[in-house]
């Protein structure tokens, strides 16, 4: 039943995404602009890592895509609560967990699709990376989306209005982005900033994907990245499930 319901909810929301092709492509715009207009600035700089500057930048942009996109996912729940769609679904026997999983899996699909577009553009700009590493990067985008979208939907269920939701998300997204070294690696940071950034979970994901992009699949960074990503996803889906189960009755 959970599988049936999740597939049903996933289908409903995937069709919703496909209906707005513009929004589907729009999400990739910000990281694409970074790639086009910021990426070339780094090509000659010593970034303190292995590989080219593209192998440092692109992993960061992939996770930025997931971070910014998935954090705002919960916005749609607020809209659907307003339309009465959320309650109309909740009054059916459909699994509460499926109402969450169907949505976050749709988001994972959309952001991995956007990540593919971004990598294709990066290839044209000069990125060269092992295929295995690129695939691992997509897997991290998917895991990050599961975590953040689950939390975002949970928040969307809790708050009453978009006015409460937006500022909260902004308060989380900006520091996370800066402190995780998404744009430039934290190896460039002074000691205190590097230490601080280790308290931000995204830091471990970025380090892991950067290692993947230079073919280091068995490094300590990779191990930590996988652990943090999987643990976050499990934790976030658990929190989301609790909120979705409890909403209403």
């Amino acid at each position, binding site marked *: *039943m959970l599988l*049936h*319901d999740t597939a*049903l909810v996933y*289908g*409903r929301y995937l*069709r*919703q995404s496909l*209906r707005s092709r513009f929004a589907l492509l729009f999400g990739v715009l910000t990281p694409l602009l970074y790639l086009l207009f910021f990426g070339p600035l780094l090509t000659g700089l010593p970034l303190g890592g292995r590989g080219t500057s593209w192998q440092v930048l692109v992993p960061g942009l992939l996770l930025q895509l997931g971070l910014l996109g998935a954090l705002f996912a919960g916005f749609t729940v607020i809209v*659907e609560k307003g*339309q*009465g*769609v*959320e*309650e*109309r*679904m*909740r*009054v*059916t*026997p*459909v699994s509460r967990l499926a109402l969450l999983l169907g949505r976050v899996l749709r988001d994972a699909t959309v952001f991995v699709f956007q990540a593919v577009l971004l990598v294709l553009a990066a290839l044209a700009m000069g990125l060269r990376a092992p295929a295995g590493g690129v695939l691992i990067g997509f897997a991290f985008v998917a895991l990050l989306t599961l975590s953040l979208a689950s939390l975002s939907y949970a928040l969307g269920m809790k708050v009453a209005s978009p006015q409460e939701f937006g500022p909260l998300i902004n308060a989380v997204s900006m520091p996370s982005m800066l402190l995780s070294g998404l744009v430039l690696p934290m190896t460039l940071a002074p000691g205190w900033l590097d230490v601080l950034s280790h308290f931000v979970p995204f830091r471990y994901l970025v380090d892991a994907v950067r290692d993947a992009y230079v073919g280091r699949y068995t490094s300590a960074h990779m191990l930590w990245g996988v652990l943090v990503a999987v643990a976050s996803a499990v934790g976030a889906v658990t929190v989301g499930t609790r909120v979705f189960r409890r909403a*209403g*009755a």
Partner: protein
Amino acid sequence: MAAVISAAGLARTFQTKAGPVEAVRCVDLTVREGEIVGLLGPNGAGKTTTLRMLTTLLRPTGGAATVAGHDLTADPAGVRRVIGYVAQSGGVDPHVTVREELVTQGRMYRLPKAEAVGRAGELARELDLAGLLDRRTGALSGGQRRRLDIAMALTHRPRVLFLDEPTTGLDPASRAGLWDLVRRLRDRHGTTVFLTTHYLDEADALADRLVVVDRGVVVADGTPGALKLEHTGSADATLQDTFLAITGRGPAPADGAPVAV
């Protein structure tokens, strides 16, 4: 006839920053199979909260209820399978077509794909939506939207249909059409209908029995005729007068001198 809804001491208190708010304090009611029952009451009396509890959207903080043999708190999933609910605001995505919404809804009630498609066509014919199946729901008129909302709640042929202010905002012809639809549902399929309304003509025309709530408790329960006789002394009284007599919230007393002319 057997009771299809029975509630005893049903209550809901909301915890707010300003302290607890007792939206529903104690609702006792019994609805028999095939009855059309109207829930009346002033704004804020607890009608919608009562309805949201009976439809499993809100957990009661006190009391107990069974709907079609399923206990509200112990078996909410069982309740959901046998009821249909139309909220005040409806609940369809404006960008989705009528057909897609109806089919998805059927599948949420676990109908197999082919059956859900068939049922969507059947409901569209029955509720006069047949020509609109491929239209986006956002492009429907108010009356068409309302019929779609009801069709959505009927995909699984529920035994009990809950309607929250079903005709608010509809023109007179659409309202009359909706009343016919509700009666037809009961007459043809034996569906029990429990609805809230602010329109006393609607309650008078449609409901077999009225339950009046005020300040979170049931203050009157009976057929429209019996309530009129009991509370105004005349079976020919208007329901409006009866309602005001029950809730004690009439307009300024008629014998009082006007404050200003």
